[in-house]
């Protein structure tokens, strides 16, 4: 009990404590319940003890990866944000978590990973910039195909592709879900009165990325911004429970703006240049090995001088 729990999660950006919904849920729940955690914000899922993020490392029971399991573990350690809820409120929590997972999550995945423009300009770029060198070429597309597979299986539609029809279908569910959440929240500060519970963590984990990540095609964000109570709900949690991240996020975006767009991708550009030089050198070396240099090595083994031996061979063949 004395040893602090360790939490591994995706690092943050855009003024969010983390860019990943699962990590956000766990972080928010831990703050709500007042859990002392040693948080490792990383951008390489292979460095987490379970191979995926978020992950909770405990001394006694090993490591856990799914948000629901992590919350159960935190509860076992007596950090329970749902302690004050009545039985009926507990039932409502389960129901609304299901609603969010079935209706809102597929649309969020679509917006971040499947919509081609958003994926290329925001999601893939962020991951390519933040994941360390050789992995950043492989991991984003792996993650994308996993997310696409997930949405397809969740919707029971094996041929779901990025396109108008899929977008319309997923977004109409998501907009309805946001309306329902907004109606349920009403003018309350949190879903069940004045103190936050696990439902608040789930809703926050799904809404905060929609609200904060600036996507080129942002229908979900537009709709969410129309609902004042949900927007206030998110910014309330951010300012009350994650004051540090907001300040960092402000600093980041301010400095980005100051630098301007030309210098924005300077490190990225350098790396690209370096990489293209490396590729070119490798190609040239490969070509050289395949043609000329092989012959010289061959001759060296024989122990005679290169030029004469090769010409001898040629002459023999000609004859």
């Amino acid at each position: 009990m004395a040893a602090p729990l360790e939490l591994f999660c995706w690092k943050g950006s855009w003024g969010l404590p983390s860019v990943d919904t699962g990590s956000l849920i766990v972080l928010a729940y831990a703050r709500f319940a007042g859990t002392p955690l040693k948080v490792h914000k990383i951008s390489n899922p292979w460095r987490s003890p379970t191979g995926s993020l978020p992950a909770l490392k405990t001394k006694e029971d090993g490591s856990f990866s799914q948000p629901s399991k992590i919350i159960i573990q935190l509860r076992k350690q007596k950090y329970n944000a749902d302690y004050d809820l009545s039985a009926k409120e507990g039932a409502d929590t389960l129901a609304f978590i299901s609603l969010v997972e079935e209706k809102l999550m597929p649309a969020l995945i679509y917006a971040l990973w499947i919509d081609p423009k958003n994926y290329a300009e925001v999601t893939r770029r962020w991951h390519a910039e933040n994941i360390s060198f050789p992995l950043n070429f492989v991991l984003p597309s792996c993650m994308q195909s996993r997310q696409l597979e997930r949405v397809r299986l969740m919707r029971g539609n094996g041929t779901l592709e990025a396109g108008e029809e899929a977008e319309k279908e997923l977004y109409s569910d998501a907009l309805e879900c946001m309306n329902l959440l907004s109606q349920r929240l009403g003018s309350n500060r949190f879903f069940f009165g004045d103190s936050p519970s696990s439902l608040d963590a789930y809703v926050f984990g799904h809404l905060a990325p929609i609200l904060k990540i600036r996507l080129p095609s942002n229908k979900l964000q537009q709709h969410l911004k129309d609902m004042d109570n949900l927007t206030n709900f998110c910014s309330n949690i951010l300012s009350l429970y994650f004051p540090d991240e907001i300040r960092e996020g402000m600093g980041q975006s301010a400095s980005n703006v100051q630098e301007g767009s030309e210098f924005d991708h300077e490190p990225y550009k350098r790396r690209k240049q370096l990489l293209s030089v490396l590729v070119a050198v490798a190609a040239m070396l490969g070509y050289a090995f395949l043609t000329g240099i092989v012959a010289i090595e061959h001759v060296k083994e024989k122990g005679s001088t290169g030029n004469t031996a090769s010409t001898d061979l040629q002459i023999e063949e000609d004859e």
Partner: protein
Amino acid sequence: MSLAAEAFVSQIAAAEPWPENATLYQPLREDQILLSDCASSLAVQAYLRMLGLPVRVRCRANAEYMSPSGKVPFIHVGNQVVSELGPIMQFTRAKGHSLSDSLDDVQRAEMKAYMELVNNMLLTAELYIQWCYQNTAAEITRPRYSSPYSWPLNHILAYQKQWEVRRKMNAIGWAGKSLEQVYEDVSQCCQALSQRLGTQPFFFNKQPTELDALVFGHLFTILTTRLTTDELSEKIKSFSNLLSFCRRIEQAYFESQDRDSQSGALDYSKGPSLM
């Protein structure tokens, strides 16, 4: 139903009244239908009966392939074909039939949330127990699912379906769960439903809603279906208010209506009765 056609359909649907010869299609009741499909089918039947819309049930071995979305049940009304409870609810609402008009906004939000709870936990648990628990899959699910087909198609189709369900479980993080954990989830879900129901006759006071139809469809089917073990139905039996809720809906919408109508025997399609 594709969304592009939806606006068009709802316009037409609103114009036409509910016909007498509406038909609901499901797989063969005796030898083929699975627990999860039976539950969905019963939910749709209960929903239509609560609205007082007549529907004739037909069993077809290839119902799954007849359905526009590949899922059963589906209804054939006039010249429209609509599958699954969600779209059917939209379809009937377009015709002016709805059970949830009297609810306020918060209640409607809660109703939708609890319906997702049933889909998310009960339906997934049914699928898990059917396809991912070895005993049930080998003894009941695969033989029943493939009963209309001859060798080798029966094996191919059954294993294909099993593979598909397992991939789904993987994607939603249920693959690592043990059977005990799944039973635990079912218990938790029933606990929530039981809490919400309390001592009321229906989930939202005196009038039945879509949620009542859905919950009845699933619980009643679980209670009346024999699996390799009856642990699943035992989980539900420990909640007495849910049991009497099922009994109440069965009496109000299945037994009495069947007694009244002339063609009762034809329409009676829910299978064995409770108690």
